[in-house]
C-alpha cells in the first residue's frame, strides 16, 4: 500500500500537469474559432446535462488539422524546424564532445570547477543571454568590430537575422545539455580499458575510436536528444536572432496564438509538434532503458 502511494506520486503529477493540459489543448485543436472569451467553441455546458455533452462532442472536428495540410506554410515550418534542430544538434555534438572529453581527462581537482563553468550560464536569465548574442552578432556588434579591428575583414559580416545566428544561439543555449551526459559517460570510462587496447596493438587514436566513442554512445545519444527535443520547438531564439526567412514551428505557434488569436489552429500545431516529438522521446527512453539494463 505504501509502495503504491509512493509510485502514484509521479503518476499523479504527470496526470495533473501533463495529461490534463494536453487533453485541454487537444480539445481546443478540435474546436472552431470564435469571437468570444475563450476564443473558441464549443464549450462544455454541464448545466444542460446529457444533451449538453452531446452537443459539445458534435461541435468537435478535425478541420484545423486539415487546414495544416492545406497551407504549405505549416509543413514547411515543420521541415525547417527539423532541419534546424538536426543541424544544431550535430553542431552541439561537435563542440560538446571535445569539451566533455577534455573535462573527463582533466585532473580530478579541476573537474568540479570545469563542471561549474559549464553550468554557470544557467545562473543568468536565458532571455538576457540571447539578447547578449544580439550585441555580439549584429552588424555593429562586438564580433564584427573585433574582426575589423584585427583586419580579417573590411565590411561587417551579416550574421544577425540569419540561420547562422539561430544555430549559434541554439548551440550556445543547449550546449550544457550535450556536455553533461557525455561527460558522465566518459568519466565512468575505465582508463585500464584504453591501456588494454594499447597493449593489444592499438594506437591511441585507434583506441579512441574503438573504445571511447562506442562506450560513450549512451551519453552521446542522451545529449543529442536533450538538444534536439527542445531545439525543435524553439521559439525565443529564432524570434530574436533569426530573420524573417527563418521558419520555425515554435514561432508559427506563437504567432497563431498571440497575433492571430486563433487558438484552435495554434493548438493543432502544438498537437502535431508533440506527435513529431514523441518519436525521438520514445527512442530516447528506450536508449535509457537499454543503458540501465546493460549497467546491471
Amino acid at each position: 500500500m505504501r509502495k503504491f502511494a509512493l509510485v502514484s506520486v509521479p503518476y499523479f503529477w504527470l496526470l495533473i500537469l501533463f495529461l490534463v493540459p494536453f487533453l485541454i489543448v487537444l480539445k481546443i485543436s478540435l474546436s472552431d474559432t470564435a469571437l468570444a472569451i475563450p476564443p473558441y467553441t464549443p464549450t462544455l455546458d454541464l448545466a444542460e446535462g446529457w444533451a449538453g455533452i452531446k452537443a459539445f462532442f458534435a461541435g468537435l472536428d478535425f478541420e484545423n488539422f486539415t487546414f495544416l495540410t492545406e497551407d504549405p506554410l505549416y509543413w514547411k515550418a515543420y521541415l525547417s524546424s527539423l532541419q534546424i534542430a538536426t543541424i544544431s544538434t550535430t553542431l552541439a555534438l561537435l563542440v560538446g564532445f571535445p569539451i566533455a572529453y577534455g573535462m573527463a581527462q582533466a585532473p580530478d581537482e579541476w573537474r568540479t570547477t570545469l563542471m561549474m563553468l559549464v553550468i554557470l550560464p544557467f545562473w543568468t536569465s536565458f532571455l538576457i543571454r540571447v539578447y547578449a548574442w544580439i550585441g555580439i552578432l549584429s552588424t555593429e556588434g562586438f564580433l564584427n568590430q573585433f574582426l575589423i579591428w584585427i583586419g580579417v575583414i573590411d565590411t561587417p559580416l551579416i550574421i544577425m537575422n540569419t540561420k547562422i545566428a539561430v544555430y549559434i544561439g541554439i548551440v550556445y543555449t543547449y550546449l550544457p545539455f550535450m556536455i553533461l551526459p557525455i561527460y558522465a559517460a566518459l568519466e565512468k570510462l575505465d582508463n585500464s580499458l584504453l591501456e588494454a587496447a594499447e597493449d593489444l596493438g592499438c594506437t591511441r587514436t585507434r583506441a579512441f575510436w574503438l573504445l571511447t566513442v562506442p562506450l560513450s554512445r549512451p551519453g552521446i545519444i542522451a545529449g543529442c536528444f536533450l538538444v534536439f527535443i527542445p531545439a525543435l520547438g524553439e521559439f525565443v531564439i529564432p524570434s530574436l536572432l533569426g530573420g524573417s526567412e527563418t521558419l520555425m514551428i515554435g514561432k508559427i505557434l506563437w504567432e497563431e496564438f498571440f497575433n492571430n488569436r486563433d487558438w484552435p489552429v495554434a493548438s493543432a500545431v502544438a498537437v502535431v509538434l508533440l506527435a513529431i516529438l514523441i518519436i525521438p522521446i520514445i527512442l530516447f527512453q528506450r536508449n535509457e532503458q537499454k543503458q540501465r539494463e546493460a549497467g546491471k
Partner: protein
Amino acid sequence: MAVPVFAPWEDPTQKPLIQFKGVTKRFGDFTAIDNQTLDIYTREFFALLGPSGCGKTTMMRMLAGFEQPTEGQILIGGIDMKGVPPNEREVNMMFQSYALFPHLSVWENIAFGLRRMGQPKDELEARVEEMLRLTRLTKFARRKPHQISGGQRQRVALARSLARAPKLLLLDEPLGALDKKLREETQFELMDIQEKTGTTFVIVTHDQEEAMTVASRIAVMDEGCVIQVATPATIYEAPNSVYVADFIGDVNIIEGAAKRAGTGYEITWAEGEAPLHTRKEEGEIVAIPEGGKAYLAIRPEKVAIHADKPQGVANAVQGKIIDVAYLGNLSTYHVRLANGTMVRAQTANTRRLALRPFTWEDTVWLSWTDTAAILLAE
C-alpha cells in the same frame, strides 16, 4: 632417466629475455623503483612479490611500456625498450581489473588484438577458437562480459592477452578477484597454460602462497628494492633477510649474539639459558661478525613440542603455552619462553582433538635441530 631441471638462471650461457639494468623510476619526489638490476629468462614463470606499494606493479608497467624508467635500461630480447610504445611491444598484459571491453562479446574481445595484426580472416578465426578451447570458453563466445561469472571473465582476459602469442605475458594480480577455491584451481590452470604455450610469464602478486605455487622464481620486493630473487624453496628455506623470512610464511625470530662454534654458530639469546646452536648446510655462507647481533629464524612446523625435556637434541627451550590455534589439519601452539619471547610450534593433528596432549598453561619443551633454523644478519 632424470628430467633436466629447469634452471636457466644457473646457466651462464643462457641469455635472459628481460634485463633490468640499474632501473630507477621516480614519480615526482617519490622513488618507486630504486636502481634495480634483474634478469628474467625465457619460459620462466616469474613472480614479483611484495606488499602493496612496494613497486612491483611499477616494474610490470615498465615492461608493458605504460611507464618509462627515469634512469637505467630495460631490455627485452636484447633490445632496449626505451621509447617503444605498448602497442609495438611483443608483450601483453592481463589487467587486475581484467579490462574486458564491455561492448564486445567474449569472441570479439579475444579477437581484438588479432584484428590489429591484420591477420587473414580464417587464421584469425582459427586462433580465436583455439584460445576459446584453451581456456574452456567455447560455450560463452557470444556472451558479453557482464553476462559471465568472475572466473570466466578472468579466463577471457587470459585468452585475450595470450591470443597474440606474445613473447612475454604480464599478469597483474590475476587471481585477486576470485574466491579462494577458484583461485587455487586457476593457479594450476595458469601453470598448465604456461607450460602448453611456452610463454614467459611475469606475475605480480601480494599473495605469497600464490607466488610459491605458480612461480619458477620469486623476487621479493620492498620499498622499491628487490630483496631476494630465488626459487620458492630457497626463498622459504633460506631467506636472506628477516624481511623475506617474515614475509614468506610463518616464522619465529629469536634475537641474540652469534659466536662461531665449530662448523656452526652458537647464539646467546637470554641470560641463564643454554645457547642455541645452528649449523649451515654445505655451501651456505653467513657472514655474521663475531659476537654481533644476529637473528635466528625458525619455521613453526620445524619446532617440535614435548612434555619432558628431550635428550640428544641441538636446541631445547622451556616455555608455557599461552594460546592454541586450531586450524583443523594443524594446530599452532603459542609458547612464551622465560624471557618473554613468543615461539610458535606447529603440529599436524594426526589424532582427534579430544586426545590433544597439550593445552593452555601447560609447561612444555620446544626443540629443533641445528639445521632447522637459519641465522640472519638483518
